[in-house]
């Protein structure tokens, strides 16, 4: 859906927000619509994406991995090679530039694994702005290196100790800050979630991924048979999928099944959730029988979120995209396999997509091609993987 009327993807999305935020959201929408087609804005953003962030990213043929699995050719869209090590910079440069055009002096953001926080801190430093980042207390511990990086970049990190102390609570706290400082503050949301226009705006800034995939595959005289990306909030996935929804490709989003879909320790919102309202949007959520949001689990802090971008909910219901999931165990296996066959250490988020690619490749023909978005690099996760392996590998 190009620019959804009333911010609705079917019944999903919308603006379920406290009244204090309405003028800010209206101002944002007005400015986004004005600048998204503005030649100078586009030129400036393109410049930063190319020269600062490192676009276009390569589409890498993972020959060793493909041959090992014996099926389709696997291509990796290398968002891990971007500045900061993740796709997040596409969106933060876009929004930070927009905030600057809107003459906003103060930027706030939320972060799960810390990648969006780091990308916000980088974009803000590059554009001469300062950011404050909310991060769940639990995440500040498991991703302490990213906290340090944000500090180095001149951003302040606020650890959030309420609720489950993860991403959803960081979003709650960022929204509270925004309500309080609405006249001066720009909220730089990190995923394709939240009230309209955030889901569509973040999708548009991330669509550079899918657009590049399209042209890079064309240069190879190919069209992808399958396109795979991981889904937490779903920004790398929607950026990958959106330009390709009109193609014939099978599109698969991969959620975090954690300890398994029946374990209650997972973050697989679309696979196991139900419809509801959270963080300004109508979407699929993980909730109990009473409508209380339940706690989530994933080995990957970046996917540890009980909601999902509303456009994904729309694609789930109209069946254009399939949503599968990968367990922590499958993710670690995929992580190790990619690391050892290709010398690429993926983020644990991205390893979810690799886990699905392994399954798809095994049952596909050699003539077929699979494109997997490698949303980020795994440096931030090696300690987490080390802990997992030391607990789970028997001598």
């Amino acid at each position: 859906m190009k620019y959804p009327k009333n911010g609705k993807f079917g019944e999903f999305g919308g603006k379920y927000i406290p009244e204090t935020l309405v003028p800010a959201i209206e101002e944002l929408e007005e400015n986004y619509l004005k600048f998204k087609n503005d030649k100078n804005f586009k030129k400036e953003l393109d410049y930063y994406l190319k020269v600062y962030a490192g676009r276009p990213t390569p589409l890498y043929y993972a020959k060793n991995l493909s041959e090992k699995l014996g099926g389709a050719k696997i291509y990796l869209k290398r968002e891990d090679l971007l500045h900061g090590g993740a796709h997040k910079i596409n969106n933060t440069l876009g929004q930070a530039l927009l905030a600057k055009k809107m003459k906003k002096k103060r930027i706030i953001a939320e972060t799960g694994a810390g990648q969006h926080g780091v990308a916000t801190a980088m974009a803000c430093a590059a554009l001469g702005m300062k950011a404050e980042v909310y991060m769940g207390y639990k995440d500040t511990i498991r991703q302490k290196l990213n906290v340090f990086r944000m500090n180095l970049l001149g951003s302040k990190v606020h650890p959030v100790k309420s609720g489950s102390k993860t991403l959803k609570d960081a979003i709650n706290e960022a929204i509270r800050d925004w309500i309080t400082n609405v006249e001066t503050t720009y909220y730089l949301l990190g995923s394709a979630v939240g009230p309209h226009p955030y889901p569509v705006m973040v999708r548009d800034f991330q669509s550079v991924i899918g657009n590049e995939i399209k042209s890079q595959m064309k240069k190879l005289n190919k069209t992808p048979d399958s396109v795979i990306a991981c889904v937490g909030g779903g920004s790398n996935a929607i950026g990958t999928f959106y330009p390709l929804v009109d193609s014939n490709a099978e599109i698969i989003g991969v959620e975090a099944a954690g300890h398994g879909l029946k374990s209650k320790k997972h973050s697989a919102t679309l696979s196991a959730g139900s419809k509801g309202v959270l963080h300004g949007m109508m979407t699929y959520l993980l909730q109990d029988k009473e409508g209380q949001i339940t706690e989530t689990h994933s080995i990957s802090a970046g996917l540890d979120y009980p909601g999902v971008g509303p456009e994904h909910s729309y694609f789930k219901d109209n069946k254009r995209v399939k949503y599968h999931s990968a367990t922590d165990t499958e993710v670690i296996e995929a992580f190790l396999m990619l690391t050892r066959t290709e010398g690429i250490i993926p983020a644990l988020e991205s390893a979810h997509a690799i886990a699905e690619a392994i399954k798809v490749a095994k049952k596909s023909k050699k003539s077929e091609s699979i494109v997997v978005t490698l949303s980020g690099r795994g440096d931030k996760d090696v300690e987490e993987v080390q802990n997992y392996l030391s607990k789970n590998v028997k001598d």
Partner: protein
Amino acid sequence: MSKISEKFAELQEKNQKALISYIMAGFPNEKSTISVVRGLVKGGVDIIELGFPFSDPLADGPVIQNASTISLKKGTKIDKFFALVKKIRKETDIPLVLMTYTNILYHKGYQKFIKDAKNAGIDGFILPDMSVEESKEYLQAAKNIADTIFLISPNTSKTRIQKIAKASSGFLYLVAIYGITGVKTGIKNYTIKAIKNVKKQTDGKIPIGVGFGVSTPDDVKKYIKAGADGVIVGSAFLKLIEKTPQSKLESKIESFTKSLKKQTLQKK
């Protein structure tokens, strides 16, 4: 006429303004909620807002957030909440407003939830994350059953004020400050201006209640003087509940309520 509208009409006749209290159901437990309600009624409160806890109360500050967490941990569920409302209804016919977040109603289905709440004795609803744009189904479900009290903010535009006032019944909830509940920033000039502006835009067609950050008799006095038809005090009650032992709860709440209510009596 709804029970809430009747209350405002009655107060007008008596030359009084409304004192509205917010308390979290089940905080710190169900027994205290009953004692608190008794104290409020004895103290002369006009309308009681009962909070139903939500896991992610994004418009609320630390005090209400903490009360939500405790209430949920104590096992507050929808059925138990309705049973509590029925108990309260046996003691008083004071207007009761349910304040919670949209997902709680949506999840059960607006129609079913609102009917069940009405049967228990709820007269109106406040949902801080329900915008007027998304409210069609909610409004239909509540029509002729319960009042829908919407929030407006000091930065709400003229045209929106009218749109929101049209969707509201019972009263209109003016958020006094840019911020979340419970944060004390003092009386702001922009709030005083907002009260006057909203009164003008709505032409006295619906009463205006002012809430968020209202915690002392002096605050009450100033907002009433500025033209508010009612004031809403929440976090200040929760703080008092938090530090008062169960045995003294009723009397402490009663005397605090009296001190606030006194400010809503207008000189003839």
